[in-house]
């Protein structure tokens, strides 16, 4: 029986059962070379792209930090007024600053603010200034209130409440798309609960909810 056991039992190293592999032809075609070069370029460009993305992210952070530090010097009432004149709702500002609406009202009426909250408020205003002046967002508050993508309720305000101002600036600059931002910020966004309902305008002209499936 000329099977593996026979081969293993065979004495000596000579056998006709085992043959050396036929060497491949080492001559490479131009297509091989082209594929090699393109693959290397692809790898190289990915590495460069990664480095440039990091550089841009760092630059956006530095820009935001520099503006924030300038704005921190301004009176509290001015910073709050910057939010109001842009049309932010106070409850949205409160959510971004992680304080209650009554606490924010006290600041509006002249109460003192601690350093951490002044920093976040300055950062919010700095973000608005950069989005307007550098990226052409004409109505920052209105822009932030819209859902990032149509099939998910997450808005720019939700990202601002998570202090993802750099992501928002990258989005405003057009360097990344909303789905990439959502993948990073809210990984489960594609699996949001679906109640099979839709909002419609009823016969009285006011909104209603109806089940569609």
């Amino acid at each position: 029986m000329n099977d593996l056991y026979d081969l293993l039992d065979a004495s000596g190293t000579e056998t006709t059962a085992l043959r050396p592999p036929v060497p491949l032809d080492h001559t490479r075609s131009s297509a091989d070379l082209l594929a090699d070069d393109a693959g290397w370029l692809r790898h190289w460009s990915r590495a460069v792209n990664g480095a440039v993305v990091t550089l841009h992210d760092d630059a956006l952070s530095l820009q935001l930090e520099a503006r924030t530090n300038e704005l921190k010097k301004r009176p509290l009432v001015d910073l709050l007024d910057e939010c109001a004149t842009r049309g932010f709702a106070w409850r949205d500002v409160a959510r971004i600053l992680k304080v209650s609406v009554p606490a924010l009202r006290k600041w509006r009426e002249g109460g003192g603010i601690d350093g951490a909250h002044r920093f976040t408020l300055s950062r919010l205003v700095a973000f608005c200034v950069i989005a307007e002046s550098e990226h052409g967002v004409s109505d920052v508050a209105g822009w932030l209130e819209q859902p990032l993508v149509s099939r998910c309720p997450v808005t720019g305000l939700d990202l601002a409440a998570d202090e993802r101002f750099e992501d928002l600036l990258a989005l405003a600059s057009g360097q990344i798309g909303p789905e990439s931002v959502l993948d990073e910020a809210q990984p489960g966004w594609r699996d949001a609960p679906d109640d099979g309902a839709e909002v419609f305008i009823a016969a009285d002209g006011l909104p209603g909810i109806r089940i569609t499936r």
Partner: protein
Amino acid sequence: MPAELETWSDPDELWLGRGSGTNPCRPIFTGDVFALGGEGFGQVVVLEHPCAMRAGARLADTVLVAPVTTHPLSSATRWREGHFDYAPLPELDGHTVMSACQLSALTRVESASLDRSTRTACLLPFGVNLLQQRLVWYLTRCAITTATFELAFSRFYEEADLLEEWCEAAIGAGVGIEEAEADGEGVLSARGATGTSPRELLADPQHRAAVRRLLKASAVERYGR
């Protein structure tokens, strides 16, 4: 993923104001809690939908409410699994006590009995949406997500916020609350050159910041603040 009853991770996500943090300038709205003080009532929470509650600045003659009691179930996650005849109102008193409104004891009260000075709390939009979700589930066993309620009714939450700010400015200038509310309603309803009112523009989130700017400018023009 199918919809299910939602809950809160921090009670502060639900409350716009409690106790002294409740702004008397805010219009009476869904989710407001009042201490009625009359016979048979302690506190009640307003359940009437914003669409059905008022005609212009005027409240309907009667308003749908549910009585508020304390409740032994404190775990936020456990509320998803049962006690469907109650809607939780955690830390309503500002402390750790669990309160809830009894959905099986819905009733109507005279709107005249809802005095702003006896309002003890107001809910944030998420809190109102959660309350609506619970009420619809109790009445119909239909689970609607809070995101859908938000999409449908956020324009009314905006209206309430805008009227609150308007009334703050008006009262600061010595105007009475009823006159202030009527003035604010008038500005919200006034049609501009395009035939559209600020109230109608609130239906689209992208216009809301512009409407806030408009009302702020109008309040400054009218009341100097």
